């Protein structure tokens, strides 16, 4: 499918205009926090991602405050909802969604480490047993991290199966085990 040509306001040639995007991100966050009566403060940090980072985060929003726990309930559901609406509000080029991260109590950063570790452990098991392994359903941004880690392990291949909120990553052996 060829996407309709679109002008992305805050990027040029897949480069994020950090200053303008950051200002609009503040506007979005201020509106949502006030409108939803959420007792949260935030700070936006500008980062220079390393080439090997699984997410190329350039603007990191760190929330804190009374309602911090709301953000983290149900596997960070509210955090992810805010993050998704933020990138849509900014009309960001989907290739650049990972440039913006919303986090609280380092939840997302810890989760990424957890995903990387799970991917490696599961891949090793698949390689040893020759049996496929199915992860729990997860959001696109988390599946992407699994796929990136797994793509570097030659003994396995990964794909996503299922639809919508049930979509899950499955690891298969790269080739079936030979009986010897």
């Amino acid at each position, binding site marked *: 499918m060829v996407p309709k040509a679109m002008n992305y306001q805050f990027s040029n040639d897949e480069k994020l205009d950090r200053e303008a995007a950051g200002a609009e991100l503040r506007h979005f966050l201020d509106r949502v926090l006030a*409108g939803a*009566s959420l007792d949260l403060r935030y700070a936006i940090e500008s980062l220079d991602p390393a080439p090997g980072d699984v997410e190329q985060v350039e603007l990191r929003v760190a929330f804190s405050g009374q309602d911090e726990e709301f953000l983290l309930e149900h596997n960070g*559901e509210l955090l992810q909802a805010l993050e*998704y*609406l933020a990138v*849509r509000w900014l009309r960001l080029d989907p290739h650049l969604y990972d440039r913006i991260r919303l986090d609280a109590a380092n939840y997302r950063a810890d989760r990424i480490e957890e995903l990387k570790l799970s991917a490696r452990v599961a891949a090793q098991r698949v390689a040893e047993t020759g049996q496929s392994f199915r992860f729990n359903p997860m959001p696109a941004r988390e599946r992407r991290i699994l796929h990136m880690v797994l793509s570097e392990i030659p003994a396995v291949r990964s794909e996503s199966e299922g639809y919508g909120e049930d979509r899950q990553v499955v690891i298969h052996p790269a080739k079936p085990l030979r009986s010897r």
Partner: protein
Amino acid sequence: MSQGGVKELVEEIAKALVDNPDQVQVRAVEGEQVTVLELRVHPNDLGKVIGRQGRTAKSIRTILGAAGMKLKKRLTLEILE
């Protein structure tokens, strides 16, 4: 912040997402324990507020869920087609 804040929030989010912001309307229907926010957009913009596999609508509902906890009232979003 009153429930009016929530209605305006939904309106503003919807306007930011659609191509026809002047066609965005939100009506708050107040029940005793529930407020239903009825969102109406230009038919061509329905996909923009619903999102792929309903993701955008779900994100708005998640925010309304949190706002509802704070306001001690259930807030539901109805997207009118």
